[in-house]
């Protein structure tokens, strides 16, 4: 049996490794995405003060600390049995929109975008942010940098710090919004709305008007028929900050809708000895291995997951785009992994429109920002991180110290799906032991669509995704090496 190790994928070095095994016929038998790292947050959060948990857990990820801060404080709200004031909820959600703005912009322009904007067939040396600049113009690059920085700035104004925000407290938030800051945020958000519209137009011009790209999006190696999970509001519309969690089956029917506190009835995690990351699945269906379809409990989260489980968006432009995506790609749910990119832009549109609603809300600058926490107990906090549903579950003792902490992060939910997408992309390109040079690009596109968090830093990488594939025969002799 032959073994192909994509190791290290430079931008994942220390944080991700792909191994592909071939069978005797030289076709792909299986592929493994290994996460070679663990830090142990669920253990060392034990014993900590409740109010420290939304601060400590931001250090799980420096790209999405706002998501951990919010899931953490919502778990605290629940554990202290306190409802934040309306003003605090609005401020938290506005900060959260700022986070989505910078995160989605970076993924689209620096990481996922090059595949489409420059083109999947373009030489590797061009398929990067520099290639995007070349194709779209330097002015566009300046706008990208400016609006990403706006997202960070909004987070910093409300959260105290851009990376690892600190202001969310059980029952509310520590700092009210001054009128001066409100005006500054409004100015930035208005600009972001225009930038989101521009980004959708760019996608339309370059991708959707190109039949080849649309065919690529819907092509077989990139299709996985899984369940989907995401957060919805009372009307089943997408919401990032709050709501119930809805799961649809591969046909798009509601499988279950549950409150955050009920997550243990729905989700379980499986452990494999070859990776430090756990593999979640739907408890009612069970772990059936890395297979898709309705008989397998594997589900996916993130932009496409959220749009697939929802009945629409609450803001007008995002709703129009939502309808257009499903019309173009043949109705709901969309199983094409590459549609994650389009979904991400629709969400960027929503984040900016929602931020504008919030920052112009007459109540946003009110001073009633905190309610007093009650007695410490147990609580679950769920938000939609940019990459998908994020679950924090805290059990506090009578001194409000953490007795038990359980965390399920977005990329963990997607880990089984990412493994399968990589395997399927490889299967389409490796036959009789012959590895096409296109393998590198295609494998890369398959997992890049998910914006996996173990590759979080790829968000701002200036190069293309560097890959190396080594092919060994059954005696561990190196047969072939591909590299770029």
């Amino acid at each position, binding site marked *: 049996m032959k*073994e192909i190790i994509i190791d290290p994928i430079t931008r994942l070095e220390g944080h991700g490794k792909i191994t592909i095994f071939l069978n005797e016929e030289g076709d792909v038998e299986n592929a493994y995405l290994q996460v070679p790292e663990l830090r142990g947050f669920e*253990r060392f959060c034990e014993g900590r003060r409740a109010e*420290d948990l939304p601060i400590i857990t931001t250090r799980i990820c420096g790209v999405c600390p706002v998501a951990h801060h919010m899931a953490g404080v919502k778990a605290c709200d629940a554990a202290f049995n306190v409802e934040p004031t309306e003003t605090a909820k609005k401020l938290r959600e506005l900060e959260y929109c700022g986070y989505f703005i910078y995160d989605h912009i970076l993924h689209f322009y620096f990481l996922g975008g090059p595949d489409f904007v420059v083109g999947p067939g373009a030489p590797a040396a061009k398929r990067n942010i520099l290639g995007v600049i070349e194709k779209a113009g330097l002015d566009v690059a300046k706008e990208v940098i400016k609006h990403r920085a706006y997202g*960070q700035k909004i987070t910093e104004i409300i959260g*105290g710090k851009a990376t*690892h925000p600190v202001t969310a407290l*059980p029952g509310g938030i520590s700092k009210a919004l001054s009128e001066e800051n409100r005006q500054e945020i409004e100015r930035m958000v208005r600009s972001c709305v225009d930038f989101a519209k521009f980004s959708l137009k760019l996608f339309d011009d370059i991708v959707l008007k190109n039949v080849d790209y649309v065919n690529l999006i819907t092509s077989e190696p990139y299709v996985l028929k899984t369940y989907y999970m995401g957060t919805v509001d009372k009307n089943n519309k997408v919401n990032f900050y709050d709501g119930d969690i809805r799961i649809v089956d591969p046909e798009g029917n509601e499988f279950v809708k549950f409150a955050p506190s009920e997550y243990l009835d729905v989700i379980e995690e499986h452990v494999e000895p070859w990776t430090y990351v756990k593999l979640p699945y739907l408890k009612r269906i069970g*772990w059936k291995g890395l297979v898709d379809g309705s008989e397998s409990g594997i589900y996916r989260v993130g932009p496409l997951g959220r749009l697939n489980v929802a009945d629409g968006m609450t803001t007008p432009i995002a709703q129009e785009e939502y309808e257009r995506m499903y019309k173009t790609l043949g109705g709901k749910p969309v199983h094409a992994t590459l549609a994650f990119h389009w979904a991400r832009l629709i969400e960027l549109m929503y984040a900016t429109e929602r931020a504008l609603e919030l920052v112009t809300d007459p109540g946003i600058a009110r001073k009633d920002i905190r309610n007093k926490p009650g007695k410490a107990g147990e609580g679950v906090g769920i938000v939609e991180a940019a990459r998908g549903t994020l679950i924090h579950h805290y059990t506090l003792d009578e001194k409000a110290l953490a007795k038990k902490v359980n965390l399920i992060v977005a990329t963990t939910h997607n880990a089984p799906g990412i493994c399968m997408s990589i395997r399927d992309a490889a299967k389409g390109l490796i036959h009789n032991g012959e590895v096409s040079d296109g393998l590198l690009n295609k494998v890369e596109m398959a997992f890049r669509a998910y914006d996996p968090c173990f590759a979080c830093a790829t968000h701002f990488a200036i190069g293309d995704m560097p890959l190396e594939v080594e092919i060994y025969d059954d005696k561990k002799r190196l047969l072939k090496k591909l590299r770029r």
Partner: protein
Amino acid sequence: MKFMSEKLKFAFYWAASCGGCEIAVLDINEKILDVVAKVDIVFWPVALDIKYKDVEAMPDKHIDVCFFNGAIRTEEQEYMAKMLRKKAKVLVAFGSCACDGCVIGLGNLWNKKTIFERAYSETPSTKNPDFVTPKTSHAVKEGELELPEFFDTVKTLAQTVDVDYFLSGCPPPVPLILQAVGAIFNGELPPKGSVLMPKKSVCDECPREKKEKSLSAIKRIYEIEDDQKTCFLDQGVVCMGPATRAGCDAQCPNANVPCTGCGGPGPRVTDQGAAMISALASIATDPTVINQAVDPIGTFYKYSLANSILRRKVMKK
């Protein structure tokens, strides 16, 4: 070899960390273009196509300055720390994880066995009746898969290799990053072993008014009605400002939450937690007041346990 380049060679590496240090580098925004004009980045796994073995092949001292973020939690990270020490003339511990272990260092209250038990067995969403855990080498039906060893103890960079400079913070504040890079460009680096941060504490940068300097009871931040201008210690809330290195412009107190200590030990402080406890003792109206501080390790050593005189908990066999 002058004909090749007059440019300085920089390297960046991340060990056990969150990626926030990389974001901090990115947050110098357009100034990164000035930096790139003056340096060649010869290794940056998150951004450039340069593999471990390319670094291995570099002559010793090939890299002028290596910024190393992240703590040492696994075998692979230790290996990279040792290799980069050999290849770099100047090694900078960059960020709280590399300098002090950061919150990852709180893992030293446990060991590999108990961390695995929590992660892979006890957590309520985990279904693992046979207690399967990740193995450094595991035979799947198709072949063998390998993972780096997870150590019992988190170590700082300086506990692993010789370090030339320290720049802490979680993440390091952008102005300090620019200052350090400026000092490198101008050949104005201070003596080896220096901390590239202001020689003052967070209190020195904090605009909050310090009043009575007496502490009669310890409260939690969510229990008080913060008046938004008085020193947190005067309001009975533990604020790590006195024991913590400045450079952040007291961002947290300015956002109405106490400093939690991410800048690491203040100037002339070797043990951040001990310094804070002693600061509290000096203003406590009664020695027993200190006992009201719940979770002293997590409060006083949140970012520095791995680099403290305590370092780790002794585990019973």
